């Protein structure tokens, strides 16, 4: 990159055929992404108990769901796990990405390889390894202190962070490549201390990567079944585990209903924060 980077948001504005084709492509991809989701939402309102045909409108499945303590607590637990593990893994992962891309140090190559391991490890292997690890270390802890530890929601969070860090790092590193260090040097020359430089220069430039990484971590955690199953203790119910069990028996409109609710809650959160952000920007 020879030129000083232009402001990032000025792509060429030519409504060429290329741009139109891109829009068309994007449009059809969104249709592809949303077709099953729309179907799922529609069938959460069907009277048909198989949930495969439209036989009339009903809200019964939602009423049933709200009375279903097990499902509701599972949904809340899952949101909690996803939120906490996303925050933790985004912080750790972003810092690691910065270290890997900006520094040369002994053991960097080893760390590089290690960082890909949680991505390449098959889930079932990581799950059983963590199960063995927790029971082993809890055993040692008990023999040392006499206190019995049990797996619970925190062992799930810890495990989710352990696999999410790498995903965050990969995405953030992709956005750090091609990062022009001279911008930071310029800031330093102008008298900014490292902290200011980080917050005012570095972070804003890598933020698409950070957000991408965080979203990935959030999505992975919401969906994880295998690792959650093996690292959770008695009495903590999680949505993927609950859904897995129920779907095995029969997929019903109730399952569609909980999915619809999760969808609506996520979208509300997004739009609400967009709204708040706009208000903040206006001030």
């Amino acid at each position, binding site marked *: 990159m020879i030129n000083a980077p232009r402001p990032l948001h000025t792509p060429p504005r030519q409504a060429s055929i290329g741009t139109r084709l891109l829009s068309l492509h994007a449009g059809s991809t969104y249709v592809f992404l949303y077709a099953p989701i729309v179907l799922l939402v529609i069938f959460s309102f069907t009277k048909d108990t198989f949930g495969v045909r439209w036989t009339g409108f009903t809200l019964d499945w939602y009423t049933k769901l709200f009375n279903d303590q097990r499902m509701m607590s599972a949904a809340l637990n899952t*949101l909690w796990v996803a939120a906490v593990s996303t925050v933790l893994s985004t912080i750790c992962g972003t810092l690691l990405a910065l270290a890997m891309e900006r520094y040369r140090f002994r053991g960097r190559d080893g760390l590089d390889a290690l960082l890909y391991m949680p991505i390449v490890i098959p889930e079932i292997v990581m799950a059983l390894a963590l199960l063995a690890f927790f029971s082993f270390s809890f055993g040692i802890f008990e023999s040392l202190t006499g206190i019995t530890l049990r797996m619970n929601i925190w062992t799930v969070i810890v495990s989710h962070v352990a696999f999410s860090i790498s995903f965050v790092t990969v995405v953030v590193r992709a956005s750090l490549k091609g990062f022009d260090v001279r911008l930071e040097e310029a800031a330093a020359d102008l008298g900014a201390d490292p902290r200011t430089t980080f917050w005012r220069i570095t972070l804003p430039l890598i933020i698409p990567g950070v*957000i991408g990484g965080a979203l990935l971590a959030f999505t992975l955690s919401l969906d994880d079944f295998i690792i959650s199953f093996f690292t959770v203790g008695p009495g903590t119910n999680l949505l993927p585990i609950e859904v897995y069990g129920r779907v095995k028996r029969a997929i019903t409109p109730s399952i569609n209903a909980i999915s619809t609710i999760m969808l609506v809650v996520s979208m509300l959160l997004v739009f609400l924060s967009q709204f708040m952000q706009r208000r903040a920007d206006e001030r």
Partner: protein
Amino acid sequence: MKSLFRLLLGVLVMATIAACGAAPAATEAPAAEAPATDAAAPAGPAFDPAVDKSKLAKEINFLNWTDYLAPEILTNFEATYGVKVIVDNFDANEDMIAKVRAGGSGYDLVTPSDYAVQTMATEGLLQPLDKTLLTNAVHVEPTLLNKYFDEGNVYSLPYMYGITGIAYNKKTFPTAPDSWSTIFDLAALEQYKGQFSMLDDEREVPGAALKYFGYSLNETSPEAVAKVQELLIAQKPFLASYNSSDVNRKLASGEYLFAHAWSGQAMQARNGLGDEFSGNADIGFVIPKEGGMIWMDNMVILKESPNAYTVQVFMNYLLDPSVAALNTEYIGYLTPNKDAIPLLDPAISALYAEGFSPDAEVMKRLEWAIRNESTAVFSDVWTAVKGE
């Protein structure tokens, strides 16, 4: 760009707040469809005067197969005894054993299948039962006690059992297809291509093929195994899928015309499943004349459990004929509780007579699948079939 960061933070903070209230929310006993119980007069059997209330734990942890317990039993038991039973689910014996074997799982009561009881007992994961506390064990069908996996029932008592045969749609088969040739005669399969399924199980599927050839389920001679493997590979293109999970629904909806299935799945296809899907009156179930498989899930107490007394009070409660009948109607598998059978809904008893439950004659054709070093060969058969 900074705004993007705020956006992210906003989402996370809100998700966190939303979840915070219920953060460590332990699973409540599923009160979903349970009728509201009056504390003064709980439904279900009354408090057993032999139980020493002071010895009861406040709660016990039950690791059970998914959807394998009528929810109101938990509510009733808690109302009567003041003990909360927290249920978590598993769906393969090996998953459950992996968790228990690691140690410190925190569970008290689990329901392994036959061979899994043997594995767990051999490895010292179970504690012996105190028969004096399990007075309701007298209701258990004697032919289902003392089986190979736990002779003398030192560690286990039966919970539910099932049999494996052919579920079919009477519109396609006006008379019961009472031979495994229905599923394995390749010449006849063409017309049903893509409209039937086999269980997704490395013992059940070779087992059915062994029976078709007239062998025992536990036959592991090289020539038998080779014949089975060849047949299964030849059969595969005709199958819709290997399916152990939603066979019930696909039979009921007519998507499958017949299937290699467990009796309980056939029962669910026939009667519907609670209010989850409706039943199909045309579904029948048969154990082919060559024979079929029988299996049983059992209640056992983990060695690590400090709550053995309470667990046995709960086990005894489950063995009460009225509770067992209620549970059986909910689950759809077969109850080993002989005194519960007369209490069942007449519609279900009628199905039992129709072949969904084995009579003495059918019972003779059923075989238990034993696990030992030589039966490990079926893992290879299965890998070969799935590798094609």
